[in-house]
């Protein structure tokens, strides 16, 4: 059984079948699609984490909604500042597509070792700081949400 959510697993398998050139083209397509995962103005979220970190060249906002009635399934929206790099944009779209609908606890268990299988060993070697950033931010948002809920339940 795969260690990854099914949607993410499909993306990983697709990337692994591609040549280096095709892989880059698909990454650019995902980067173009990142804007579709931005929050709409009227959406309500359980957690909003908008900040500018030293790991990224511009502000990234992670917006999380958790459907407790449906087994804690998560819905992510992510806003990206204009200076955010292309690889980060691509990973944003990939992870929103691959993780939305996953149970909150399962998001925390997703190992990061799939990233080189998507972006390729060369891009990881050349820009190692960039490729793991968004996954880290999404996991951090889920962790904060679960901790807050746990604290509220205990309090």
């Amino acid at each position: 059984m795969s260690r990854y959510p099914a949607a993410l697993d499909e993306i990983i398998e697709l990337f692994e079948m591609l040549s280096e050139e095709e892989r880059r083209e698909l990454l650019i397509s995902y980067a173009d699609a990142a804007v579709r995962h931005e929050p709409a103005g009227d959406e309500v979220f359980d957690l909003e984490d908008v900040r500018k970190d030293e790991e990224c060249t511009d502000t990234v906002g992670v917006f999380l909604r958790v459907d407790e009635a449906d087994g804690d399934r998560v819905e992510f929206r992510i806003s990206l500042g204009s200076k955010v790099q292309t690889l980060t944009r691509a990973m944003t779209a990939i992870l929103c597509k691959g993780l939305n609908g996953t149970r909150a606890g399962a998001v925390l268990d997703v190992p990061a070792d799939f990233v080189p299988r998507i972006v390729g060993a060369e891009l990881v070697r050349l820009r190692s700081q960039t490729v793991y950033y968004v996954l880290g931010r999404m996991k951090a948002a889920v962790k904060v949400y679960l901790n807050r809920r746990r604290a509220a339940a205990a309090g």
Partner: protein
Amino acid sequence: MNDKIAAYAHPEVLVDTDWLAAHLEDPSVRVIESNEDILLYDTGHIPGAVHIDWRRDLNDATIRDYVDEDGFAVLCSRHGITPDTNVVFYGDKSNWWACYAFWVFQLFGHDQARVLDGGRAKWEVEGRTMTREKPAYAPSDYPRPARRRDDEIRAFQDQTLAHMRAGGPMVDVRSPGEFSGEITHMPEYPQEGVLRGGHIPGAVSCPWARAAQEDGTFKPVEQLRGIYQGELGLGEDDDIIAYCRIGERSSHTWFVLKYLLGYNRVRNYDGSWTEWGNMVRTPIERTAG
């Protein structure tokens, strides 16, 4: 050539967007994009431009150094560049990596080189044509350069240490926080394993951005003179070393001093703070608490 560019000491190394737009079909010109954002070229670039990545294409993969003479010849051949080709560099981040690539090309003596004033951002803001079509040029026969000119425009750590001990002028072009030792990386950038914060003793702080205008173009020559001659007191014949974190921002300042102001002896210490700040028994200065 516009009036601002004409006033520089070596106006032949800088072109504006009008010039480049008029030379896109010129077979003697090869446009080269070099960026920090490794996929930016793939999202769209100036028609006919090729992509050179500072790490993949210019750095040796196993030694912290640049490609050797053979590697440079292979790189140029791959992009159809000959020693007579006018290479024009542009890129993101106010041309940091464009200047870095320009500097590496100078290490190998490729004199027919220019930088696009304002870089990628200015071309885009002006609404000029971009494309995702990647050009394919017939491989050229680029002869192996006789030598890499490390001794002329590059400073190594031992040379920088001797320069420091001799009280030679050094310009630290990093941010004020990096210079003071408060932080060990650029604001908004990741820590890259530097153990100590501070600067090389005797270096003066002059962030690279002081040479740039809001739109990423270089400041006019009078303003540059006011900064580097007036404020820093640097003379045209001074033996000057510029450094930053890994040599990209100092390539920008090196370009300004050497070509826009016409200083005769300027070297880029590309090992910069990631080397100096970690080197055993190498002194540093701090001004932060």
